[in-house]
């Protein structure tokens, strides 16, 4: 047939090979047909019987989810046995009668149950359908006694995640929810199938694959009605690993008590390695709520609420630091020579720049103050002047060196960066140049400056631990009897490159804030221990306040200042660093300092 191009000899060779190929293919496909003959005709009757009796089902065995404890081993999250109510459609004789009986026994929306029955294909009628998770003991008692005259109803035990202390550390621990389609597709949950609960946030989310374990399974032989005849083979589940947090439960619960009915956040760190001892954010939500599946309207209410209870304010709340920013100002000023510790600067109570007068918080002013006085009494005028000497870009350089305006690298993520403005930033963001007046208000942590409580706690840690910025971590240990997956190790991520004597000057001043009779942090003072710290009062809506002077009783709570206190103790051998922020709490000295004092006393075991 080949008429062109090819050499007739080659054509002959190719045709011979094609014949061989055809024969090979014919033989192989015939072999498949012969195999089918054996399967379907010779052994067919055997398989036919098997298919008629075929009721081998795969049943999943859910693994035991790892437990979570505090640093001392006290259990925070466990699994408790619970009972779930199922129905087997095939066994129900009279649906209306069944539903009426069900309504009589327990409080349940029978219409929803009826809907579920309608949706179930007849082909699956031997499979159980979950109608109520985690029934109460009382309900269980009633149902058990009536089980025999309610064919189609069954109770099955399961394990339920249990947050032993409800709200406690709920932002850190996180919560569980049913895996959704995108999560299934993502391949990030290799050990989970549709219908499984997975960790959605916090420690539960971040270390889900360790906590989860690996599901087991069994082949179960069932009869036509789905009743179990026997287990054919079992693959035991592998339990999840346990997690020990760096959190101190007693400290955490005291922190949360102090935030009760307020909005705000408290962070306590081990200043020497970045372990988080407590991280509280208020308002909070009890993660037990999510387990049975949360109602849609409730969920929407939760995310749209202005209180944002799901937000972890300690890491993602961004607040102007107020006077606690003077720690940065002090370091920048000393290091750059803008501050001479002995220089006396006069504070007459106002500072005029152009045609605008900037106030000191103290009416009438502080008189002549040196560096230590200025920090101790938190003189605003002193730092306005230092701010002008430094300029915003130098201030920003030191703030960034102190870890502000950037994520701290906190293990759980979801952090806000805060904001440290520079002249370049402003030009880019607003298209207008930086104003000198903005330098003035930035100098006392106002204007555009925003920080998170965690950043501030780490800042004071660094001042007292020799300048080291550690990555804040929350997990001390992950593992179980046979496996040791992770043990805490500090991670150094930055250092304050400032001279030692400058750090010493600042430390001395911060000790004096709490211990000097004139100090603004006097209410954090503890007998016998040197506490150091810095107050902050962050104006929320400066303009509004001018219109509504404080004496006015009708001032809305929303215009009240945020109260800050950052503290560390004992100053000579620091063991705990804290940042306390109370939204709209008023002055840092009054609203935040006493809380810091109580927490330090608790952690250092001091009774007074």
């Amino acid at each position, binding site marked *: 047939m080949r008429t062109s191009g*090819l050499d007739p000899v080659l054509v002959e060779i*190719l045709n011979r090979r094609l014949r061989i190929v055809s024969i090979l293919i014919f033989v*192989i496909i015939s072999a498949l047909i012969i195999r089918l003959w054996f399967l*379907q005709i010779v052994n067919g*009757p055997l398989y036919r019987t098997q298919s008629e009796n075929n009721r081998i089902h795969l049943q999943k065995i859910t693994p035991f989810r790892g437990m979570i404890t505090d640093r001392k081993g006290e259990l925070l999250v466990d699994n408790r046995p619970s009972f779930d109510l199922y129905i087997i459609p095939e066994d129900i004789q009279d649906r209306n009668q069944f539903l009426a009986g069900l309504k009589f026994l327990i409080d349940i929306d029978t219409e929803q149950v009826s809907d579920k029955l309608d949706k179930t294909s007849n082909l699956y009628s031997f499979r159980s359908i979950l109608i109520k998770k985690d029934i109460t003991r009382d309900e269980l008692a009633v149902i058990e006694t009536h089980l025999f005259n309610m064919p189609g109803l069954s109770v099955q035990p399961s394990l339920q995640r249990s947050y032993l202390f409800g709200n406690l550390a709920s932002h850190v621990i996180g919560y569980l929810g049913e895996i959704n389609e995108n999560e299934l597709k993502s391949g990030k949950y290799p050990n989970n199938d549709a219908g499984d609960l997975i960790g959605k946030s916090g420690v539960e989310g971040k270390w889900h694959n360790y906590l989860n374990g690996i599901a087991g399974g069994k082949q179960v032989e069932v009869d036509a009605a789905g009743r179990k005849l026997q287990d054919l083979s079992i693959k035991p589940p592998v339990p999840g690993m346990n997690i020990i947090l760096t959190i101190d439960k007693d400290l955490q619960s005291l922190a949360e008590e102090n935030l009760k009915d307020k909005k705000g956040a408290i962070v306590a760190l081990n200043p020497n390695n970045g372990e988080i001892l407590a991280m509280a954010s208020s308002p909070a939500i009890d993660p037990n709520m999510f387990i049975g599946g949360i109602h849609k309207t409730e969920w929407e209410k939760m995310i749209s609420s202005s209180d944002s209870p799901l937000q972890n304010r300690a890491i993602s709340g961004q607040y102007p630091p107020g006077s606690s920013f003077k720690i940065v100002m002090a370091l920048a000023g000393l290091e750059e020579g803008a501050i001479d510790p002995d220089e006396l600067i006069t504070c007459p109570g106002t500072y005029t720049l152009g045609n605008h007068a900037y106030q000191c918080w103290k009416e009438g002013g502080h008189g002549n103050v040196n560096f230590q006085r200025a920090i101790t009494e938190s003189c605003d005028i002193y730092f306005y002047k230092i701010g002008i000497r430094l300029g915003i870009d130098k201030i920003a350089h030191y703030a960034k060196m102190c870890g502000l305006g950037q994520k701290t690298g906190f293990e759980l993520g979801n952090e806000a960066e805060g904001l440290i403005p520079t002249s370049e930033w402003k030009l880019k963001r607003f298209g207008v140049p930086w104003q000198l007046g903005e330098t003035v208000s930035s100098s006392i942590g106002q204007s555009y400056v925003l920080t998170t409580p965690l950043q501030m706690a780490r800042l004071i840690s660094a001042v007292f631990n020799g300048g080291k910025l550690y990555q804040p971590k929350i997990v001390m240990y992950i593992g179980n009897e046979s496996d040791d997956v992770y043990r805490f190790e500090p991670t150094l991520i930055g250092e304050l490159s400032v001279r030692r004597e400058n750090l010493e000057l600042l430390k001395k001043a911060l000790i004096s804030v709490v211990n000097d009779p004139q100090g603004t942090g006097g209410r954090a003072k503890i007998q016998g221990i040197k506490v150091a710290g810095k107050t902050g009062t962050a104006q929320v809506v400066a303009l509004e306040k001018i219109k509504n002077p404080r004496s006015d009783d009708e001032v809305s709570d929303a215009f009240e200042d945020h109260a800050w206190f950052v503290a560390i103790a004992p100053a000579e051998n620091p063991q705990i660093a804290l940042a306390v922020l109370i939204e709209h709490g008023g002055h840092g000295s009054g609203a935040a300092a006493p809380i810091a004092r109580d927490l330090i006393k608790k952690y250092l075991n001091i009774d007074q």
Partner: protein
Amino acid sequence: MMFDRRLLQNFDWILLLILILIGAISTINLYSATFPIRDAGGSQIFFKHIYWFLIGFAFLLLMTTFDYHFLERLAYPIYFFSIGLLVLVLALGEIYSGSQRWLSIWGITFQPSEFFKITLIIVLAAYFADHGEYTEYRLRDLWRPFLLIIVPFLLIVKQPDLGTALILIFISFSIILFMKVNWKSLLILIMISLLSAPFIWFSLKDYQQKRILSFMSPGSDPLGSGYHIIQSKIAIGSGLLWGKGFLKGTQTQLHFLPEQHSDFAFSVIAEEWGFAGSTFLLILYLLLILWGINIAKNSKDMFGTILALGIVSIVFWQLVINVSMAIGLLPVVGIPLVFFSSGGSSIISTMAGMGLLMNISMRRFMFQ
């Protein structure tokens, strides 16, 4: 290009008839396979299958409109374009159950690896048609085709899509063996493959290793693929001579069969239509393959012969591997039965391949 009237006279009606028959049977079969899950996405799978077939036939006709020699000249541009797509898949492909195989362009999601089978055949056919002077290939004559094969192979293994990667190897070896390799070279080749196996093994990720392990020994996973094979064998065996009847296969309808609309679609026809049905289907595929080889034989040039043979080898290998898996002769590996398993990229790319076969058949009497 002038459209020659003789082309229409030479239109290969037999090929078209076989394809329509297989398409019709597979549609009926898929209706049954998706019936138990019709409310849970099953009907969509069914209607999509019809839709893929219609698009597939359009592609088939499209592939007959030009002279296939055109492809010989364009072989390398097509090849590098397809490699580009495979790289793109790894860069921004969509991940589904842990593998990254899909690419979404203008709202159309497809699997470039499926289309690569055709690309590889075109480029190998072009290469060997151009180097037809060898009567026996030695290893050193083959380094270029090896390079052409190994690059896409590695890219597809990386996704990972071991099934398709394996098919690429089978197709390539079919073509190379057909071109006749010196027996010593063949031996060395086998040795090299065996020796390089450990290196490839250790460069694989954990889950890739696991897949291969369960591929090697299904007994290691009695609840997973072992269970699948048992259920598939029960389904096929219980069909007896005439089957249980349409929509009456208990294994299918009670959903004991895994992946019954894709990898195990053959088990469905065997259960419901018995030995008669399954054999009829296999004979149809055999006719399709032998007809394809006839087209290869009648082609007037080397390029056409190798191209036709390569396309036929896709159908052959996927048929043999898929059916062997269903009847328990091979471990479970995700290789679909062409035209029979659901899946748009597979159907459309194979239909395009059939179009090329038709193209070669239609131009068998023409002079260049």
